[in-house]
C-alpha cells in the first residue's frame, strides 16, 4: 500500500488581534492555515525557529513540542484552552509567533510564486517571543532574528484586570505574590499585527535590500507603511477574525440579536474607520500611552490635503502612514461598493431574499454577516497579493510612493488587464491622488499610471536566455551589452543584486504568468564640488570636499520568452531626485549616520533604531547641526 500523500497545510490557534480584543468576555482567537512541516521542539521549522530567550532576565523558556497525529499533521495543544493559559503559558506565545510568521512568509511566497528569502541570507529566522523587557519589537538582520519585547501595563489597568477564579483560589492558599506576573504585562508577541509587521520588514528587506539606505522620508517611511499595509490586509483576509470583530464592542455591550446578520450601521465609512480592524497595536498603544489608543490608525488621515508638504510628514513613520491611508481607504471603498450589492434595490427584493437582507427600521438594514465578511476577506486578499507583487515592479533604490503606485498598477495589469469588474486599479489611483500621490509613469496607450515599455533596441544575441533566468553574471552581461539602451551611467559601479523567477496564476483562466525579475544598482562616489558637472545641486552649506554617494538602479522584468517588458529604474543622474535626496539627507544630518553605517556595515541595526526613534530618539542630529558641524 502506498503511503497517503502528506498534508500540505496545518491549522494552529492564534490570538486573533491581541488579548485586548474580546468577544463575550473571552479573548478573540482564530485558527489559521500555515504550511505543514516536520517540526523540532521550539517549534523549530525549516524557515522559522522559536527560541524563547529573555535577555533581560537571562532565562530560557522551554520549547513547545508537538505530537504528530495519524494524518501527519501535529496536534494544536491550545485548541479550547482557557484564556488564562493563552496569556500565561509561554509555550502558547511560541506557537502564536511561529504561526503568524509562517503565515506571512507563505503569503509572500504565494503572491510571488517562488520561495522568498530572509534578508540575512540564512534559511531560518530565529524568533524570540520574550526577548527583553521593553515596549519595542523589531527585526534584527545582524542577529538574524525577530525580537518581541514585553512591558508592564499601567498600574490602574493591571489591578483592574479580572483574575480568573482558579487563579484567585490558588492565591488564597499561597502568600500573596509580590513578584510581577504575566497578568501585569503586555506582550508584543501576542499582537497579530505587530508580529505580521515585523515579519514583513524581514521579508521586504530580503526582496529590496537597498530600501533601508538613507534616501528620502518616503523610502524610510515605505518600510513602515508597507509593513502596516501587509499586517492590516493579512488580518482582514481571515474571515474568522473579521466576522466577530466588526461590531465586537456592540456585542460586548449585549447589542447583538442574531449572530448571522450584521447591522448596516456598523458598515458606514466612519464606523469602519474607527473599528479596531484598521488599527495597529491596539493593546500596545494603550499600554504605552495609558489611553485607549492604538499605536497607529492611519486611515483617519483624511484625503484631500497635501500632507507631504507638512513638516510633521517629513518624519519617516508619519510619512509611511500616508501610504497606509491610501491603500486602506481604497480597500474600504472597494469593500463598501461590493456590500452595496447586498442591499435591496427595491422593496420586492427584500422579500425574496429575506435571510440575506432584511430591512429593519430607520433605514438600517441587517445584512448577511458571512457574505459581508467574505467580500471583505476576498478584497483584502487580492489587495494583499497585489501589494506584494508590486515589490517586484518597484525600482530597487530611492523608492517613492509614486513609484509604488505605478508598480502596483502595472503588476496587476499584467495579470488582469480588465479592471472594470471591481475597479481595484481605478480606486487605488483615486485614493492615492487624495494624498497627493500620482503615479510616476504617465502610462501607456491603454492605461494611466502603468510603467511604460522600454525604449530603444535591445541586443539579446550574446546572452543565453535560459542562463539569464537564474544567473546573475549572465544577467550582468545582458545589462552591460545594453548599457546605453537601458540608460545606465557609464562610470558608475554596477551590480546585479538578484535574478528571480516569478510565477503567478491568472485568476480568470488559471494559466501561469511566468516572469523573470532582476534588480541592479549603480553607485557613484563624487565630491560635492563635482556635483555641478553632473547637473546636481550641492546643498549650499555642504563643503566642496564632502564625499557624496549617489545611487541609481532598476528592476528588469522579462517575459516568459526572455524579452524585456519593463526597465523600472531610478536613473543615477536624475537631477530632480538627487537634488531632493541630497537636500533631505543634508538637512537632517543623515550623512553622518550614513557614513557610520556604511563603515561599520551596520545597516542591519536600522530597524531597531527606527523603532526606538518612534518613541524617543527623534533625529539625534538636530536640524542644522549636520555632519560637518562637529569634529
Amino acid at each position, binding site marked *: 500500500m502506498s503511503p497517503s500523500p502528506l498534508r500540505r497545510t496545518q491549522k494552529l490557534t492564534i490570538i486573533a488581534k491581541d488579548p485586548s480584543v474580546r468577544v463575550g468576555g473571552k479573548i478573540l482567537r482564530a485558527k489559521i492555515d500555515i504550511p505543514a512541516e516536520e517540526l523540532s521542539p521550539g517549534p523549530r521549522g525549516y524557515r522559522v525557529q522559536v527560541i524563547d530567550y529573555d535577555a533581560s532576565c537571562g532565562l530560557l523558556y*522551554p520549547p513547545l513540542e508537538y505530537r504528530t497525529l495519524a494524518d501527519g499533521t501535529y496536534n494544536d495543544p491550545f485548541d479550547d484552552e482557557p484564556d488564562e493559559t493563552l496569556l500565561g503559558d509561554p509555550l502558547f506565545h511560541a506557537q502564536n509567533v511561529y504561526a503568524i510568521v509562517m503565515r506571512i512568509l507563505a503569503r509572500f511566497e504565494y503572491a510571488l510564486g517562488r520561495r522568498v528569502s530572509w534578508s540575512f541570507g540564512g534559511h531560518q529566522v530565529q524568533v524570540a517571543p520574550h526577548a527583553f523587557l521593553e*515596549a519595542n519589537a523589531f527585526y534584527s538582520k545582524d542577529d538574524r532574528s525577530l*525580537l518581541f519585547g514585553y512591558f508592564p501595563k499601567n498600574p490602574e489597568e493591571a489591578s483592574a484586570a479580572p483574575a480568573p477564579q482558579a487563579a484567585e483560589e490558588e492565591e488564597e492558599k499561597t502568600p500573596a505574590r509580590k513578584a510581577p506576573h504575566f497578568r501585569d504585562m503586555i506582550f508584543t508577541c501576542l499582537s497579530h499585527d505587530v508580529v505580521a509587521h515585523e515579519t514583513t520588514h524581514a521579508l521586504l528587506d530580503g526582496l529590496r535590500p537597498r530600501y533601508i539606505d538613507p534616501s528620502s522620508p518616503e523610502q524610510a517611511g515605505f518600510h513602515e507603511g508597507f509593513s502596516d499595509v501587509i499586517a492590516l490586509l493579512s488580518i482582514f483576509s481571515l474571515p474568522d477574525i473579521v466576522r466577530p470583530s466588526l461590531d465586537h464592542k456592540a456585542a460586548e455591550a449585549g447589542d447583538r440579536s442574531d449572530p448571522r446578520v450584521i447591522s448596516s450601521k456598523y458598515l458606514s465609512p466612519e464606523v469602519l474607520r474607527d473599528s479596531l480592524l484598521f488599527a495597529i497595536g491596539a493593546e500596545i498603544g494603550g499600554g*504605552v500611552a495609558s489611553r485607549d489608543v492604538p499605536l497607529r490608525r492611519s486611515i483617519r488621515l483624511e484625503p484631500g490635503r497635501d500632507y507631504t508638504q507638512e513638516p510633521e510628514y517629513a518624519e519617516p513613520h508619519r510619512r509611511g502612514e500616508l501610504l497606509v491611508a491610501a491603500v486602506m481607504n481604497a480597500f474600504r471603498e472597494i469593500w463598501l461598493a461590493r456590500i452595496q450589492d447586498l442591499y435591496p434595490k427595491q422593496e420586492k427584493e427584500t422579500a425574496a431574499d429575506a435571510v440575506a437582507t432584511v430591512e429593519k427600521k430607520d433605514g438600517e438594514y441587517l445584512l448577511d454577516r458571512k457574505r459581508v465578511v467574505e467580500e471583505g476577506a476576498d478584497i483584502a486578499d487580492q489587495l494583499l497579493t497585489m501589494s506584494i507583487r508590486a515589490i517586484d515592479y518597484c525600482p530597487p533604490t530611492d523608492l517613492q510612493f509614486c513609484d509604488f503606485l505605478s508598480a502596483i498598477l502595472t503588476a496587476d495589469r499584467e495579470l488582469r488587464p480588465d479592471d472594470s469588474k471591481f475597479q481595484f486599479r481605478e480606486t487605488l489611483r483615486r485614493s492615492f491622488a487624495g494624498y497627493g500621490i500620482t503615479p510616476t509613469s504617465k502610462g501607456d496607450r491603454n492605461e494611466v499610471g502603468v510603467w511604460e515599455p522600454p525604449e530603444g533596441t535591445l541586443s539579446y544575441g550574446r546572452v543565453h536566455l535560459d542562463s539569464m533566468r537564474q544567473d546573475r553574471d549572465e544577467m550582468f552581461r545582458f545589462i552591460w551589452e545594453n548599457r546605453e539602451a537601458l540608460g545606465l551611467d557609464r562610470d558608475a559601479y554596477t551590480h546585479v543584486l538578484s535574478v528571480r523567477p516569478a510565477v503567478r496564476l491568472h485568476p480568470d483562466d488559471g494559466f501561469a504568468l511566468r516572469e523573470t525579475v532582476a534588480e541592479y544598482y549603480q553607485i557613484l562616489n563624487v565630491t560635492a564640488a563635482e556635483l555641478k558637472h553632473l547637473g546636481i545641486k550641492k546643498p549650499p552649506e555642504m563643503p566642496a570636499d564632502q564625499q557624496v554617494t549617489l545611487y541609481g538602479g532598476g528592476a528588469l522584468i522579462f517575459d516568459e520568452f526572455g524579452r524585456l517588458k519593463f526597465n523600472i529604474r531610478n536613473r543615477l543622474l536624475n537631477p530632480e531626485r538627487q537634488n531632493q535626496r541630497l537636500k533631505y539627507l543634508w538637512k537632517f544630518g543623515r550623512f553622518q549616520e550614513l557614513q557610520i553605517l556604511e563603515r561599520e556595515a551596520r545597516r542591519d541595526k536600522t530597524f531597531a533604531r527606527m523603532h526606538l526613534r518612534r518613541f524617543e530618539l527623534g533625529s539625534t542630529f538636530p536640524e542644522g547641526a549636520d555632519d560637518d558641524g562637529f569634529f
Partner: protein
Amino acid sequence: MTDSSEPREILLRVYQVGFGDCFLLTFRYGAAGEDDRHLLIDFGSTEVPNGAPERSVMLLQIANDIKSRCGGKLYAVIATHRHADHINGFAIPKPKKTRRNQEQKSSGDIIRECRPEVVLQPWTEQPDAPEDPLTQSFQAHLQTLHAFAATVDKHIPRLRGVKGSSDVLNALQLFAANNVGGNLPANLSAIENLRTMGERPPLFLSYGQSSGLELPGVKVHVLGPPTLAQSREILRQRASYSDEFWQLLKDSRPILDSLDPLFDTPATATAQWTPQHARWLVRRLGSLRSEQLLEMVRVLDDVLNNTSLILLFEAGDKKLLFPGDAQWENWSYALNQEGIADLLKDATLYKVGHHGSRNATPKSLWKLINGKDLISVMSTKPDRHGKIDRRTEVPRATLVQELQKRTLLSTQDMGWAVSSDGEPPSQELKFTPRYGRSPAQRTAPTSAEPPS
C-alpha cells in the same frame, strides 16, 4: 593701595580629577590672598586618574587643597549641571566612624565649610518649578530619565551575568551611574548640599539673566541654558511618546529587582547552561540588549548635558568661557542671538565642553573663539568613552588636533603625583587683564546681561 574696582589678576587652577571637572577660578583684586574672590566651578569625577587613590579619598584631598588655597572662604560655587562627574565631589555620604570613633569628613563637608556666599545652577535645578506646564513637564521628564538610569544602573550586575560585550557594559555602567540624579543617595546628598550650602539662597539661571555675582570690574554673561520659552531645542530629543515610554521603563524596576520568573513555567538560567541550538541567539541577544540600553542612556546623557550653565567671565581684555557640558541644542540659542558672536570672538580661555567629546564643541562655536591667543583647558581621561572608529571617542582626536593648533592644557597629560606638601596634582593659569581707560569702561556694571 591697589585699585579694587577691577581684578588685577585672574587665576585658574585646573585639578586633575580623571574623568570629571574641577576648576578653582580666582579674581585677585589686591595682594595675593588679601582680597581674592574664589569661585569653584564643578567638582566631580566618575573615573579617577591612573595612580590616584579611591575616589572619595582623592576628592577629599582636592577639597582640602581648595579650602587651603581659598583661605577657608569661597565666594561662589557653580554647578553647571547634574551629572555625577560634575557634582559628586559635593556629596556628603552618611558619616563613617573611624576606629577612634571620630566622624570622618567628606569632600562635600569641606566645601560646605568654605561657606560660599551663593551657589549657581541651571534653571532646570529649581526645586519649585514655575507654573508653566511645559517647564513642569520637562522637569518631570528629567526625573523620569534619572529613574530610568537608576534602573539600568541596578540592572548591570544581572546583565553581566547574561553575557554580552564587556566594552558595552562598561560604557553602560559609566553612563547610567552618571545620570542617576537624586536616585543614588550619594548624588542626592550632593544635590541637597548644593541647595543649602550658600549663605544666600541658590540662584537658578538661564540665558540672559543676571548672574547675581558681585565681582567688581567683571561682567558675567549667562549664555545658557535657554528657557523653554526661549528655545525648544533642548526639548528636541523628546518626541510625543517619550514620557510614557520612559515611564514604562522606569516602572520596569520591580521586575528587574525580582528574581521570580514571569511565568509559572520553569525556565533555565542561561548563565548556567544553554542548549546547543540556542547558544548563538543567547549570545547575540545578550549584547544587543546592552547596546540598546546604552543607546537609550546616551540619549538622556545628551539631554542632561544640554541643561548646562554656560558662563562667560569678562574682565578688561580677558574673556573666560565655561560651558559645562553644553551641546549643540543648548549652544544654538545663544549663538543665534545678536551680539553673542562678537562677544565670543576674542575669548581668552575656553573650558573644553564635555571632556572633549565630539558633540560639545560645534565647529560654528570653534570658528568664533579660535583666536591666536586662545588657551583651551580640557579635563578628561582617555579610553573611557566611545570608540575611535565610530568617531565618538572622548576626547575626540580631531578636536584635540584642532585645539592643539592653539594652546591646550589637558589633564590627561598631568598624571597623578601628590607633592611633598601633600597637595594633589593641579595646574595654575594666570591671566593679567588690561583695561582700556575710557570712562565708560571704568564705570562698567559689575555684572551684565548679554545683549539680546
